């Protein structure tokens, strides 16, 4: 009888597949709902029972990116054929676009602060991790623990002192201030993660490069960095996700110039009635950069997560 304990039968594979897909659909339902709402009209978005099939419209997206005002009577008489499509869309509702919304600005704040702080956390974290991994650092273990301990505190616990410090330093509601703050918070994670990855790289690679006539720095960036790329990429994703999603400190420390998207999106709800499609569109767009970044680095991420699990 041909029977194997380890190899599932085709039927078992089907069942397992259906279960996994089903589970994925259930967990992704809120996400699907948000994405779908973004393409609904205002009326559809609050219809009861909820509409699963609807006529898609980009109204929500136009609304989230623009500020509008009621059409005057004269303007309502103008021919609309030569206007851009988004203006036509808005005029059908009796409105006209008067400028960009603040969402665009907030979104780019998020991009600048998120990617900026990730960049600095990775550069500084890699340098520190390399030093911890390769050089004799006095009190190395204590220092590493100290660095990690800064991460143990919930950031909100220090929010007030940080607010006061930032006010004195003139960093309140500035890009530099937020980049500095998120870099500081992410740095401990970056040092620890990257330190682990660099520890896994045999020191002989660098020594071989030193003997082959390269300087220490050349050995670092030509031999160690390519080896650590996987770990650095996955660390970058973790850092970006944190900085991108951070809400509590952003609410407290930013209000205008440097406000990021997370504290801003809820405020859309209150402007001119509940424009749910606009909120959903804002949320959907907010998802995109992290998703793209993660997808670009996903090969590294998977390898990074399982790194060290298997002996080479």
């Amino acid at each position, binding site marked *: 009888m041909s029977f194997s304990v380890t190899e599932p039968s085709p039927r078992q594979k089907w069942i397992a597949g259906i279960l996994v897909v089903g589970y994925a659909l259930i967990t992704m339902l809120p996400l699907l709902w948000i994405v779908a709402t973004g393409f609904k009209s205002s009326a559809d978005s609050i219809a009861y029972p909820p509409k699963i099939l609807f006529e898609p419209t980009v109204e929500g997206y136009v609304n989230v990116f623009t500020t509008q005002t009621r059409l005057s009577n004269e303007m309502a008489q103008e021919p609309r054929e030569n206007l851009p499509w988004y203006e036509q869309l808005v005029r059908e509702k009796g409105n006209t676009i008067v400028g960009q919304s603040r969402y665009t600005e907030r979104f780019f704040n998020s991009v600048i602060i998120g990617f900026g702080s990730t960049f600095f956390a990775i550069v500084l974290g890699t340098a520190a991790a390399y030093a911890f991994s390769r050089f004799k650092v006095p009190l190395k273990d204590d220092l590493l623990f100290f660095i990690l301990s800064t991460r143990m505190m919930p950031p909100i616990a220090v929010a007030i002192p940080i607010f006061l410090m930032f006010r004195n330093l003139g960093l309140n509601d500035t890009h530099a201030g937020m980049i500095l703050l998120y870099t500081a918070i992410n740095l401990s994670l970056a040092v620890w993660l990257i330190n682990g990855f660099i520890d896994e790289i045999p020191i002989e690679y660098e*020594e071989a490069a030193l003997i*082959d*006539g390269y300087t220490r720095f050349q050995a670092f960036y030509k031999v160690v960095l390519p080896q650590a790329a996987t770990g650095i990429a996955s660390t970058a994703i973790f850092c970006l996700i944190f900085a991108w999603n951070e809400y509590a400190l952003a609410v407290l420390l930013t209000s205008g110039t440097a406000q990021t998207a997370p504290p801003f999106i809820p405020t859309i709800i209150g402007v001119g009635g509940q424009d749910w499609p606009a909120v959903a569109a804002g949320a959907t767009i907010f998802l995109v950069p992290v998703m793209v970044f993660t997808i670009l680095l996903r090969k590294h991420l998977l390898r990074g997560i399982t790194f060290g699990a298997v002996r080479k």
Partner: protein
Amino acid sequence: MAQIMIRNVRKDFGSFTAVKSSTFTIEDGEFFMLLGPSGCGKTTTLRMMAGLELPTSGEIYIDGEEVGMKPASQRDIAFVFQMFALYPHMNVGKNISYPLVSQGMPRAQVRKKVAEVAEILGIADILNRPVGGLSGGDRQRVALGRAIVRDPKAFFMDEPLGALDAEFRERMSEELRALHDRMNATTVYVTHDQLEAMQMGDKIVVMNHGVVEQFGRPQEIYDWPSTMFVAGFLGSPAMNFLEFDGQLSMNRNSVHMNGTDFQIPTSLEGARGRLALGVRPEHVRFSDSSGYKGEVLATEYLGTTQIVTIATPNGSIKSRMSAAQPVSVGDMPGLEFDSRTISIFNVETGRALLSQANQEVLRHG
């Protein structure tokens, strides 16, 4: 190619002394073995020569130039690591060309050199392969290729055969020796395998606890060890020590042990107290006329020879003899030793006493 001189080199790691005042010279073109048990300081010594560690004190000369404090990249030497340390993100050809690229050699010339080296090592057909999937032997060849490609002043190898299967080791050690003979490059080779050291080396340094115990040609060291450690470390089975309380004066050619006189090479140094008569297993013979008897405890059959373990009044010893000789456990044969090959050791100091036979070896080593 170059001569390498080590003068009073010492290395401390905190309070631990890895190498205590080593001094020896490696002549131009020699295949030189650093031999010793693990933790004896041989690898540290090699790494100091290469510039991967800096000596705490002492001087290292390569080609007449003092390089003790220079970084590895300025010493113009090549190093073969035990784990090969091939750059995993580069293919075979790139790995081999890497040292040339650092010198800024033009591309066409690099390609030519790499092709040449690949030809010598028989790896021309795998130049475009990633190093990940290579067999142990091929990895070893690539590592050698990376070492020889830029004609360095010296090759340093840290147990390069340690990571290979027994089957490959034999072949690679032959290849290594052949490669050395062809290029005539000064080579320093670290190993803990005494057989490998004797098989391949022109000269051997035996180290223990950070101290150079002896250095010289393999046969000199094997025949005339300067200490009991060296005598015990080289040879398999090791040299036998028959310990006894007694004395030896100058210009004597026999020792009295357990009521029997044994012929020895004429002594040039006296001692009294605990002594040991050292004799290699192949120099222990059965003799009906000898009054010194032992009991056979065990025999190991090795094909052409057999190793016979014998209990004597001065401890258990091993004898290597022809497998054709009939021996059975419980026999009580008389024993005699080849008098020309005996060393007498002072057990307390562990040092060999000077004799007519070993003076030449011990005085220059």
